[in-house]
């Protein structure tokens, strides 16, 4: 089985959020980037586990500039066999999905994280599935393969659903699917020699753009309540905050 895992890079979770160019672009200066946790912890690790159990290959794909190669090498160190980097700025979800779909032929299973932790779009997986005209199971918390049949558990409001679907298919991975893996020394050494193929972008569409970023208003400040007077807290929640 051939698995393609889509990985994106996001600012490290404690990174400072600031903007430039008249608040139209994220200021990346001094920001450290990581692999999007949902892509890394769940999609990639589960893909590697499926390969270990059933054979096959795991390829990772990223749409982005050469500075993303560090993140791609980490994915190779965790256990992917090879990588594709589409050499273009990931300007919108649609554009990214079009690039991934253009590289996805011949893969049985395409995996993404359930969303990125920066723009939280949750769009790319569904778009890739539609472009490839294959089934899509989102927010999967478990996947097992038997031949070309996948048994997938997905989160739904207030519960979960288990379904069967044959490849090719696209899934997005959520918490529960796998446990984070820290790459070991051997993995890191081997990653240096694994193929990272840089390809040019196929055409694509950008139908949305950020017109302006803004920072949310600061909180007014905390009101401390006497621990022995919970009646006062309840009163404030009812009368001042009006939330009870």
């Amino acid at each position, binding site marked *: 089985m051939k698995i393609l895992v889509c990985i994106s890079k996001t600012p490290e*979770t404690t990174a400072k*959020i600031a*903007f430039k160019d008249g608040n139209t672009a994220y200021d990346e200066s001094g920001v450290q980037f990581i692999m999007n*946790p949902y892509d890394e912890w769940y999609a990639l690790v589960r893909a590697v586990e499926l390969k270990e159990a059933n054979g096959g290959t795991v390829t990772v794909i990223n749409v982005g500039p050469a500075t993303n190669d560090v993140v791609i090498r980490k994915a190779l160190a965790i256990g992917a066999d090879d990588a594709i980097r589409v050499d273009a700025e990931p300007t919108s*979800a*649609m554009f990214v*999905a079009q690039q991934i779909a253009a590289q996805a032929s011949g893969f049985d299973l395409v995996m993404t994280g359930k969303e990125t*932790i*920066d*723009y*939280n*779009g*949750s*769009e*790319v997986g*569904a*778009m890739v599935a*539609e472009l490839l005209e*294959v*089934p*899509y*199971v*989102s*927010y999967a918390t478990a996947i097992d393969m038997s031949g070309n049949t996948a048994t997938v558990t997905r989160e739904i*409001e*207030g*519960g*979960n*659903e*288990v*379904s*069967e*679907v*044959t490849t090719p298919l696209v899934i997005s991975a959520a*918490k529960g699917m796998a446990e984070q893996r820290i790459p070991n020394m051997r993995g890191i050494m081997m990653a240096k020699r694994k193929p990272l193929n840089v390809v040019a972008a196929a055409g694509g*569409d950008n*139908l*949305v*753009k*950020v*017109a302006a*970023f*803004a*920072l*949310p208003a600061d*909180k007014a400040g*905390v009101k*401390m*309540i006497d*621990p*022995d007077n*919970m*009646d006062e*807290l*309840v009163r*404030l*929640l*009812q009368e001042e*905050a009006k939330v*009870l």
Partner: protein
Amino acid sequence: MVLVYAESHEGKFKKAALEAVAYGNETAKVLGTECAAVVIGDANEAGTLGQYGASAVHHISSDNLAHFDSQTYAAALSGAATALGAKVVILAHNSAGKSLAGRIAVKLSAGCVTAANAVPTNDGAFKVKKNVFAGKAVADYQIDSDVKVLTLSGNSIKPEVVGADITVSPLSVDVPASKIKVISTNKQQGDTAPLPEAELVVSAGRGMKDPGNWGIIEDLANAIGATTACSRPVADIGWRPHHEHVGQTGVAIKPNLYIAAGISGAIQHLAGVNSSKCIVVINKDPEAPFFKAADYGVCADLFDVVPKLTEAIKKAKAKTIY
């Protein structure tokens, strides 16, 4: 025209669907047009969507839509959008909406913005806001395509009755057969709202010391009808189920009230909860970073304070019927 997918569960329209219709109605006003709703499956109560601002309700019925599959549902909804000439398609930002939006956007060559949290503006360009960087910033997105697809973040608009029931008209669209076979659907017991929709949330973290101590958190949640949540380490070590994990790498929520006990308020935790309308923090460490993000703080031992708060709520409830 603005087209809203009003998702139903066993024929009932929940909050997310009503919010989507109310939002569709507001969006239609901005564009100087009407808002229509489309329903799939049991449509017995679909006429009530008129109360929340739908000026037409269309019902798609097909055996191929017996269970949710983003492929068949996207075909049905984009078919409806094309047949009705919709310029904006609106979905709830929930598990169905999120898996449909990207597909519908591809089918309609539409620009897509997910988790919108304010009514769009349209002076010269169509723009809509959403939270980005896990609530640490707001982005105003401009959509340039003729057709637009939006998903609406929960608790962003209050559905109000603005009209009356209307008649439901059948709509016929081509729907392919589903390639997904559903084996089982498992719903957790309990009648509290699922986390992303909950208006009241009680959450606890590592300060609880032991999973056996959660009774006081559940008592507090029950007293106000809240949904329970937790910090990431607590879900990681298996003290609480994964679906309760809120934060940057868990569920992002914005309830009216978020009560956090024994949670330090790490930046990744705050990222998923800082859009809550009101935050109450109970922590014994006066230096806990969470106090900086709180509206009300109680600096004390949670094992002492949480039961007292539950009692105070019960007392207030007995006095006032709210």
